[in-house]
């Protein structure tokens, strides 16, 4: 029955996205042409990748507000490496970005695991620390397109079967997370830890270690995004992805991940991210100032979390009724 609820929730979200597309298409048919939809998906790819990592963290009752700063720091480090060593292959850069991102995530995870500091405090702190380090590394300067090597910049734009590499990576990440969440003990332990930490301990799951792994995964995704972000926009500076952590959390909450932990799905998170992506890319088309973006994602978070609470409340009532009937 619970899985039915989640399914129906994703159905609602999918319907909302399709409805949104239909409304936009009625006025601006060009928006729903395949070429443009690919652009919208490509533009949302970074959000999807980050939301997948954030999903793991939120499932374990934590929150990672440092992802955007992690993106900026990893992005600046790989961009700096690229200017110093232009010959470095993209594979090496990807490995460095993933490793560095994972290390930064592991710092969050260790503080949460070993010292049991609330995740929100840890990541609020590391958020500013990471961004400060970006400033220390770059000395406040920008790394511009002409300083980056051609291979470094070309990677996310490389097209395979009509889809840019950036989109393919997002698809690959989503597939990985489907496997991790649904088919591995680690994925199950995320739900166990978030659903009931005490029960998780009794079933032999180390709660702190699971949270540590969630943070490391989230950091790894942020590291990956760091390289993709910097190479796609061909610029690296201190304020890159400023405030993006809120959009990532918004994508998760809209996608039905309960902030109290233990409830959610990969499909929901993906749809949540796409929902925000469709709106974001539609704003300039329907001639609304981009300054509306912040207020819209804020409202989306509030509406989504209110909706989540409402649906879980009715679920409780239904269970009680059916229990009465069976008794």
């Amino acid at each position: 029955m619970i899985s039915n609820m989640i399914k129906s929730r994703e159905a609602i979200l999918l319907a909302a996205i399709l409805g949104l597309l239909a409304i936009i298409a009625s006025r601006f048919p060009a928006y729903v042409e395949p070429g443009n939809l690919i652009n919208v998906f490509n533009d949302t790819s970074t959000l999807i990748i980050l939301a997948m990592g954030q999903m793991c963290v939120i499932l374990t009752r934590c929150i990672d507000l440092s992802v955007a700063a992690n993106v900026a720091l990893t992005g600046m480090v790989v961009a700096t490496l690229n200017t110093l060593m232009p010959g470095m292959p993209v594979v090496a850069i990807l490995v460095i970005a993933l490793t560095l991102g994972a290390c930064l995530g592991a710092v969050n995870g260790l503080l949460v695991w070993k010292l049991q500091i609330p995740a929100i405090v840890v990541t609020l702190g590391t958020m500013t620390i990471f961004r400060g380090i970006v400033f220390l590394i770059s000395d406040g300067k920008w790394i511009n397109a002409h300083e980056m090597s051609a291979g470094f910049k070309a990677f996310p734009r490389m097209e395979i079967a009509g889809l840019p590499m950036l989109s393919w990576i997002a698809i690959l990440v989503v597939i990985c997370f489907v496997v991790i969440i649904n088919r591995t003990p680690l994925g199950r332990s995320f739900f166990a830890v978030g659903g009931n930490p005490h029960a998780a301990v009794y079933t032999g799951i180390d709660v702190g270690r699971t949270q540590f792994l969630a943070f490391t995964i989230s950091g790894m995704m942020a590291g990956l995004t760091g390289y993709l972000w910097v190479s796609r926009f061909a610029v690296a500076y201190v304020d890159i992805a400023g405030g993006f952590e809120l959009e990532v959390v918004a994508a998760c909450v809209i996608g039905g991940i309960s902030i109290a932990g233990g409830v959610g799905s990969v499909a929901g998170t993906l749809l949540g991210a796409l929902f925000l992506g469709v709106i974001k890319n539609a704003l300039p088309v329907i001639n609304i100032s981009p300054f509306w973006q912040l207020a819209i994602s804020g409202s989306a978070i509030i509406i989504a979390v209110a909706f989540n609470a409402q649906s879980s409340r009715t679920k409780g009532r239904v269970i009680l009724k059916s229990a009465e009937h069976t008794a």
Partner: protein
Amino acid sequence: MTDATHHHVPDRLTTPLQRALKSWETLLLTVAVAIFIVNSFASPYFLNAWNLSDATFNFTEKAMIAFAMALVIISGEIDLSVASIIALTSTAMGAAAEVGVGTPGIVAIGLTVGLACGAFNGALVTGLGLPSIVVTIGTMSLFRGISYIVLGDQAFMNYPDSFAWFGQGYVFWVITVEFVFFLAFAAVYGVVLHKTNFGRGVFSIGNNPVGALFSGIRVKRVKFILFLLTGLMAAFASVCLTSRLGSTRPSIAFGMELEVVTMVVLGGVNILGGSGSIPGVVIAAFVMGLVTFGLGLLNVPGIVMSIFIGLLLIGVIALPRLWFQIQVMRGK
């Protein structure tokens, strides 16, 4: 998760003096004095009445919010939207000033908007029973988002001259108006939290909301009032900040919520709720003000200072826990 299996039973009670000496506030005060001494050696410009008076601006506005935030955190909630409330109230005041409203009207509009923001947060948290972290992350985007919709890349700066009194006025010699407000609010919040039934209620809600409810405390109403107060204090800080800057941009006070939360936690308030004190927050305000002012005199850029703030936030919570863990390991 960690069961307290090992209880140390003391052979006599500690005297109030011993407890005071061992308290978090005493430690903080020592740190504050140490920073003051280090600063006065590090820079020749530090020990100057006017410079020190200027330095109070580093913390007075944040501290005003921190007092209300301390109560919210003690009650087990959090409000991350305070900086955005500043932006929205400042925008409302700027718009009012633009159409020629006088200073009392501007302030009244600012405080009303702040109360409305607080009521909105409070209604979502208490009325719908939503987690305050998500609600205020949402309203953090929403409130500042409205400022961006109204202002875009523009700015309001047609404030009347008399409006400057709040942020630029002096009461007596080097004592600023803001500093007097800071002291007054510290006294008010200290009394409310530590000397009234309402304050006792805040503590009991933070320790055990269900227990508080069953002992006759109207938990939802108290929490609603706390969010209302936080909105009001953010609006008041907005009046001071706007008056001091003399202009409003939608990016005003960006990221200030972090510094406010840091100040509260540094002041010894338990981030999980249930304990804390206003004197602690007052001393923490001085510590943060002295650190940023001292670093500023040494030409350290703002973003590097934020590294210190971040380290301070984590370190302040991490060090006692590390210390405790080491003690436990030694005990075994």
